[in-house]
């Protein structure tokens, strides 16, 4: 066998060392729930059903829905920070 040195065609990304998981805590009180609608058809309906399901299990003070301007664009970083600061629980990652 002959070993060959090849140039990587990808972009290696540094993997952060695994650390301990964050402490799981029960909510201290009613939580502010955020549902992020990615804009796909019927996404809002699915998310609302999930939100209602969460509300049956956890004390929810409010349910907000944030709609992305386009399913094809990532959520703006500043908007994401603002939403994170205002809510305790976030449901996102909906596909088609």
């Amino acid at each position: 066998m002959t070993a060959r040195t090849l140039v990587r065609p990808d972009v290696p990304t540094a993997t952060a060392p695994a650390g301990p998981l964050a402490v799981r805590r029960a909510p201290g009180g009613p939580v502010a729930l955020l549902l992020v609608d990615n804009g796909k058809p019927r996404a809002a309906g699915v998310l609302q059903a999930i939100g209602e399901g969460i509300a049956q299990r956890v004390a929810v003070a409010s349910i907000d829905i944030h709609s992305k301007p386009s399913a094809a664009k990532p959520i703006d970083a500043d908007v994401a920070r603002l939403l994170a600061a205002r809510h305790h629980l976030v449901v996102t990652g909906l596909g088609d």
Partner: protein
Amino acid sequence: MLETIVVDDDALQSDLYRRGWTDGLPILAPTVEAVRAFLDAAGVGEDDVVGGLADRGLTMTAGTAAANAVMAGCEPVHLPIVLAALGAALDPSFNAPVVCTSTGGAAICVIVSGPGSVTAGMNSAHNALGGGNRANATIGRAVRLALMNLLGVKAHGTDGTSLGHPGKITFCFAESPPPAPWEPLGVALGYDPSDTVVTVAPADAPRQIANHLNEDPEGILATIAAAVRSPWHFPVGKGGVEVVVVLGPEHAQFLAGGGLTRRHVQEYLVGHTRVSEAELAAAGVLPERGSHHDMVPDADGRYVTVARPEDVRVVTAGGAGAGWSAVIPSWAPAKHARAVTRRVRPPGEGLPPCGPDGCTVNWD
């Protein structure tokens, strides 16, 4: 700096395939020597920046691009075109992450206009959209592989394509000289006739058009419009889609010879491709409501396909035949992804600084 790995020669194909770095077809080994030969031929450095995706912290260097070009089977003379195509594909308006992962399965159509396509040995004549030419096949494959590997997009991973099409392996062709008085696409886009320009367009599979008997320009335009006007096409009614129209030599000659300009073709398609409610109903399409994909009718109740003349790129290619052309629509509305054009930098000129004709990198 070139990042390297060591691979057993006997396991080259299986190793790189297992890592998800190939498209399933065999590749050539991106050895350090081969990559450096490509970079030298293009007159660029291995760390020169081709473009990037700021929100993902990803940067495409010339070294990485060259490694993918070697793997795809390119010759060194092809690298400047690959670099320009990748610079265009990393423009934010192309929206490469979505083009490469959408369920709609878009290909990246690479169109080369100008004298450099001849130098590179590209085909613009018979079978221009098919196989049989190394430059066409490998340049298109290199662009696809490079974006796939930059983004980490895998066929059974983050590439959510439901079906896809063969153009997702390679989809690249050169423009043939248009009939007088039409100018080449690059000149029509504002570049100098001596420039070679490359356009990358998010692309569905090409729809071939047959009109063998009608020499009337209006009749040919009507046929092209009929191919573009498809009630089942995802972008209908969603603000407009971009379309590449590939005119075969007979259709191009009848249109140009009949006194029509590119602008006439573009405007005709804007005006004759809107879809009626009845056409939607006949195709069983339910208008989307309550999403960011809403289908919104115009005031007369029809749904837009092409919103602006500029959203139609008219290019000539193909060999003499009976009267064939093709339309290559984007898979998604233009608000999601747009075609982008860049000038190919000749060897020794180096890559451009970031700017309107260079690697637009938004690092905010």
